[in-house]
């Protein structure tokens, strides 16, 4: 049970007078996958940072299950827009370190778990001993995703998680995300920022379109799960939703 609520949120960054978010009200129900889309600079990352507890709103309240969020915590896994691995730890250490914060297991068990999740995101054993600076951009991003997945938090907060990887890997990671989402007793609550409309539709229960720090549109995605990404795009509803979203997003340029 992890419902996230944004109540009358305003965000103004220091030294600017520009409202990054303006009067935002949004509820993400427990177990839902919600995508945030919108032109760049519209406030997607800002919204996610609020949910993670890393940013305090200038005014308004961010709550989880009715409780005000006071800071970040292990109950919410986060993937950042720019892969934020610790450069002084190897890839494997980045994962095992995160895991150790969650569970007091023996070292071997933790290492095994870490190696498994890395393999699932497509990184082999040789890569595990490298430092992040020795990896390509997409590989670093996958390590960051693996780090969040392995923590198995009830809430996933992901900021453009798949933008740096190729299409195949992206599909695989999407499938992995959906699998992990369903696993466990209760479904996870997922808030994912993306700029890929197809990805948003495929993954989400709801797609929220932001523009200039305000909600432009909040669209329910009706397709049954499990979805087949090569089938749903043939459906009529898909074309309509895609069209609506495109229109909503592109409003800026008319």
């Amino acid at each position: 049970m992890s419902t996230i609520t944004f109540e009358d949120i305003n965000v103004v960054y220091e030294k600017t007078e520009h409202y990054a978010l303006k009067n935002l009200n949004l509820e993400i129900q427990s177990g839902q996958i919600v995508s945030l889309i919108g032109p760049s600079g519209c406030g997607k990352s800002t919204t996610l940072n609020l949910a993670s507890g890393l940013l305090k709103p200038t005014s308004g309240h961010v709550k989880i299950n009715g409780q005000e969020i006071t800071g970040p915590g292990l109950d919410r896994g986060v993937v950042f827009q720019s892969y934020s691995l610790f450069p002084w730890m190897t890839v494997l250490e980045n994962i095992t370190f995160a895991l150790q914060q969650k569970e007091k297991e023996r070292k071997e068990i933790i290492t095994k778990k870490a190696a498994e999740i890395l393999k699932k995101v497509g990184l082999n054993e040789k890569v595990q001993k490298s430092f992040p600076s020795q990896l390509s951009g997409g590989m670093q991003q996958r390590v960051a995703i693996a780090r969040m997945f392995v923590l198995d938090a009830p809430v996933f907060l992901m900021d453009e998680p798949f933008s740096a990887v190729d299409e195949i890997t992206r599909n695989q990671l999407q499938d992995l995300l959906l699998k992990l989402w369903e696993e466990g007793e209760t479904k996870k609550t997922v808030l994912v920022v993306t700029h890929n409309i197809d990805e948003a539709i495929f993954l989400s229960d709801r797609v929220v379109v932001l523009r200039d720090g305000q909600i432009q549109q909040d669209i329910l995605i009706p397709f049954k799960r499990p979805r087949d990404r090569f089938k749903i795009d043939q459906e009529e509803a898909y074309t309509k939703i895609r069209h609506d979203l495109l229109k909503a997003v592109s409003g800026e340029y008319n």
Partner: protein
Amino acid sequence: MKNVIDRYSITTIFFGIISIALITFFPSQETDSGLSTKLFFSALLIGYLYFTILYKNDYVKKRATSDITIIIFLLLVLWELLTQKLGVLSTFLYPSLHAVIEQFKADGIELFIHLSASIKLLASGVFLAIILGIPLGIYAAMNKRLEFVLRPIANVLSPIPPIVWIPYAVAILPSFQASSTFIIFIGAFWPIFINTLNGVTNIDQRYIKSAQTLGLKPWTMIRKIIFPASLPSIFTGIQVGLILSFILLTAAEMIGSSAGIGYYVKLATDYGNYAKVITGIIFIGFIVTIIMTVFNKLENYLLRWRN
């Protein structure tokens, strides 16, 4: 073999041989340059060859060794020419190479006894500065209120010449040894503290944010994130602290003690025994090179994650 003999090594060896020839056959002003000088030049050349063979696959290091060796030869020959050979420079301020080597031979064991006293003093002072400066720096950086109080205090106190504390140290601390240690400590403390403070303040916020989402306990946060992330800056602080503590060694060792390499140099200065002064300086330079090399190796290893 081709790796060893290249244009750099040939130039250097040529230079070395010319140098030895010069000091051997050029007529001296007073006494001869002495066998020891020639042996020393030869030892230098052999040392050079050793390093060239050691670095035979590292072009850059090989070239650097060669460059440095040539510079040393040039300086030494110039020195010998101006003192022993031509007598241009006064032997009071500029003792001949020969005199310095003889001094080395005479004081060899004594120097090492002095060295051990200095190392003990340095180690305890710098160690204290490290175990106080780093935690305090980290703590102050994490606690803005403390930072805003400590930063101006550091700004005011750090540039005060540590030597003015000597009378107070002598009056307050229980022993001369403690006073000496305190002077070394205070010299090393400020750079370590300030660099730690700045290092922690300048950590890329992405790492802090990333760590916060893992819900780290404060202690883990410090140990695993803040400390390694600010390590580059901390290392700079320790390096500057080390340099300052070396500089303060002479002053610290003249507080009621009669041991230490700084004492040796200071005493020689007071007596106007410049052969000894130069012997001491070269010895210090030698020791410092070793300490700094070890220190840099450690730094490079611990910071190997930087690209």
